[in-house]
């Protein structure tokens, strides 16, 4: 073992991951330093999660070799990776509220022999040891649902440690945590590294990375971009490496003109049942013909703001749609008739009607516009509207009677957009409209947003992708912790200003 390799625990060489049609990782070299916090960062789709899944044995690389302590390894399953000491804590917690802490930690590998009852005493002993190691005062018999989110996150870490993890992958561990909980997590991470555990840390919050990271690796478009020690670099450097220096392509023609505000929002405030403020005193407007982008990290309150505007949440504050004052109690269907419409973020959960036809999916919001004698649906007018929308949005579908779940993600998204257009909106809200669709469909969606704005519709869309927000917004709003932290014209916006605004108050 050479001296240079002594402090490297994992070395991945020329890892490629090829999916039909796309290359997620292209000959990526990656190093994990022993006993350090190794930060990995990149835009959505840069390949971080794919790389992590390969390290954790969730997926197998198409090409390339992984060396663990200078020994070539290949993982067929997460169990293989766990046996070699690599544990992963996923972004979504995989825990069960109705089980105790100890039961959660030992789920699927309970201490039990044959038909004998569970060895609860042994499970509790090991759990207590783990809790001591994490410096937590949590009883092994405590019900998981009684713990705070931050503590639950630590239970996930304990689960990985119970497997005697030597390398711990944390995927966006702080996205659901409060500030104090984040500090607690950081303390645990420092303790673990002091014990010799190597941490791989994925996050979008750059400030956080600067605080906790030792080494940073940047991926871009499936390629290895750069690696550095955190003490040598700063935030603008990261943004530059992450986005590249090539000019952001823009979808907007110069000299765009806007009309009167079609959406006016004053002092919107949303407090959930737990007493958390999700949208904090937001005031803004969208003019006719203007595209306004809302940038922010997960949990910044973008989705909640849009839900307030559509009347899906009980908020306080004033909303004005196309000059009409909207009472806070007005329900969604009335608001849609006033001319506001939402393309939701989670298409599967909130967007499509999977087993209904493309046609029914498209017209469900606008049935009231095509009635005969104000009662029965005018099927001829309906068919015409659907055909023209399919043409306008270039949706690839063999027949409007086909079930929507047979379509690709991009085409499903276009159908959902078509649904909102058939209501003739004056304001169109799009919540992460490009999530989970391919690049071709993405630019279709952007072009469509521009076309609509040229027809005088005010567009408000949200994204957590810096390139996207720079490509299609006339004006950029940044949200952080439910507050509006920036409201700038795109021409005056810089990436690093947006990034620091998105981390304000965290």
């Amino acid at each position, binding site marked *: 073992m050479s001296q240079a390799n002594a402090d490297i625990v994992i070395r991945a060489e020329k890892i490629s991951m090829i999916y039909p049609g796309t290359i997620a990782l292209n000959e990526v070299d990656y190093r994990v330093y022993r006993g350090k916090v190794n930060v990995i960062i990149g835009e959505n789709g840069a390949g971080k999660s794919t790389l992590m899944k390969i390290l954790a044995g969730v997926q197998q690389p198409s090409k390339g070799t992984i060396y663990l302590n200078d020994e070539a390894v290949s993982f067929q399953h997460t169990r293989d990776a766990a046996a070699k000491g690599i544990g992963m804590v996923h972004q979504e917690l995989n825990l069960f509220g109705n089980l105790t802490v100890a039961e959660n930690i030992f789920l699927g590998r309970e201490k039990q022999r044959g038909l004998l009852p569970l060895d609860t005493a042994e499970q509790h002993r090991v759990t207590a040891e783990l809790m001591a190691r994490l410096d937590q005062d949590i009883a092994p018999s405590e019900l998981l649902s009684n713990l705070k989110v931050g503590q639950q996150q630590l239970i996930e870490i304990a689960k990985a440690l119970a497997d005697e993890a030597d390398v711990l992958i944390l995927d966006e561990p702080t996205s659901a945590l409060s500030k104090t909980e984040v500090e607690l997590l950081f303390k645990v991470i420092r303790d673990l590294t002091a014990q010799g555990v190597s941490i791989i840390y994925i996050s979008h919050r750059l400030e956080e990375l600067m605080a906790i990271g030792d080494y940073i690796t940047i991926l871009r478009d499936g390629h290895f971009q750069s690696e550095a020690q955190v003490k040598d670099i700063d935030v603008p450097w990261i943004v530059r490496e992450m986005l590249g220096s090539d000019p952001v392509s823009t979808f907007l023609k110069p000299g765009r003109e806007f009309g009167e505000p079609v959406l006016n929002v004053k002092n919107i405030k949303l407090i959930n049942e737990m007493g958390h403020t999700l949208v904090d005193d937001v005031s803004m407007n969208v003019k006719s013909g203007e595209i306004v982008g809302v940038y922010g990290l997960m949990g910044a309150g973008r989705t909640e703001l849009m839900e307030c505007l*559509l009347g*899906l949440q009980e908020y306080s504050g004033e909303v004005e749609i196309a000059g009409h004052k909207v009472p806070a109690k007005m*329900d*969604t*269907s009335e*608001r*849609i*008739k006033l001319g506001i419409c*939402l393309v*939701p973020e989670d298409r599967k*959960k*909130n*967007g*499509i*009607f*999977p*087993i*209904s036809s493309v046609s*029914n999916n498209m*017209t*469900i*919001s606008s*049935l*009231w516009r095509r*009635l005969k004698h104000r*009662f*029965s*649906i005018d*099927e001829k007018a309906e068919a015409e509207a659907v055909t023209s929308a399919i043409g306008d949005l270039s949706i*690839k*579908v*063999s*027949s409007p009677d*086909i*079930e929507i*779940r*047979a*379509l690709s993600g991009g085409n499903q998204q276009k159908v959902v957009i078509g*649904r909102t257009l058939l*209501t003739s909106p004056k304001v169109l809200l799009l919540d992460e409209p490009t999530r989970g669709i391919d690049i071709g469909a993405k630019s279709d969606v952007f072009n469509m947003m521009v076309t609509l704005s040229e027809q005088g519709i005010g567009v408000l869309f949200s994204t957590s992708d810096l390139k996207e927000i720079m490509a299609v917004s006339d004006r950029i709003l940044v949200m952080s912790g439910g507050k509006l932290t920036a409201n700038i014209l795109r021409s005056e916006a810089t990436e690093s200003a947006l990034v620091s605004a998105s981390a304000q108050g965290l």
Partner: protein
Amino acid sequence: MKISQNMASQPSSVFSGESLLLLALKMRTFIALFLILAFFTFMVPGFLAASSVIIMVKHIAINAFLALGITFVIITAGIDLSIGAILGFCGMVAGWLITKGIVLPMFGIAIFPSVWLIVPIVLVIGGLIGAVNGILITRYNVAPFICTLGTMYVVRGASMLLSGGETFTGLSGNEQLGNTGFELIGSAKLLGLPYAIWMMFILAGVIAYIAKRTQFGRHVFAIGDNEHSAELSGVKVRSVKVWVYTISGFCAAIAGIVVSSQLVASHPATGVSFEMNAIAAVVLGGTSLAGGRGTIMGTLIGAFVIGILADGLVMMGVSEFWQMVIKGVVIILAVIIDQKQSRLQHKAAIVQQK
């Protein structure tokens, strides 16, 4: 010759086998109806004689009223177990109004409303009980199964309480009180067919129209398919659901009136477990209990299949115990075929899309 054959087989050649199977599966309730009819015609002499057919369809009509009413509920992925009890209760209310009238003790009199008033009153009561179901389910988040199980017991108990468990007899009314004619609903005929059969077809037509051609119908399907999306699309989910249960209660009231009129008596235990037959008819007709998928025509045919199966087996002299076994097997088979169809349909849609 050869060329034309090629031309004809070209477009469908690859999947002709599957698409034929899919067509057969789609038409399965129809095919089942046809097979059952053929079987009994062969096995039971005089099975298709006009008189026996009319009696059979009269039996079917009762189940069809309930099944048509509950179809919307099932399409929204709900269930209504209280319809049998509502049927019984509504019959009891009708019987009570005819035999005892509305008693006003402070004046020492009883008002006997005419049949023209009794029928709407009973229909409204049925609808209101359904609306209560709907409100409990939407406002207080009670699972439909539990909620309607509860109202089933409450309503059944209430109909027992109405008469102390006794039967109201002599529902043909009293000429001097001017409330005669109730029994005509069950016995009178129009163009040779009993009223009940006409009513069944009219109700099926109205409900099919609502399903296909009104906003309400589309909203019902949308809620069953994806309630979250429906809410975001501007569907008033709560109010649609309340109406769906109201329709279910209303249809049960129609069935209650027809049954008590046919018997010229109302017994508080009428309609026990009728809801199960209705649900079976709906499921047989291709409506998914998971919601979002179903047709009114299917429900009607499903009711026919169940009814003909029941009466046919009786005419063949099959024991009542075997009848139950056979009915159960048919229902389970229907659901297995339904699963198969939806998988095949999905596959076919993807192929067609490519």
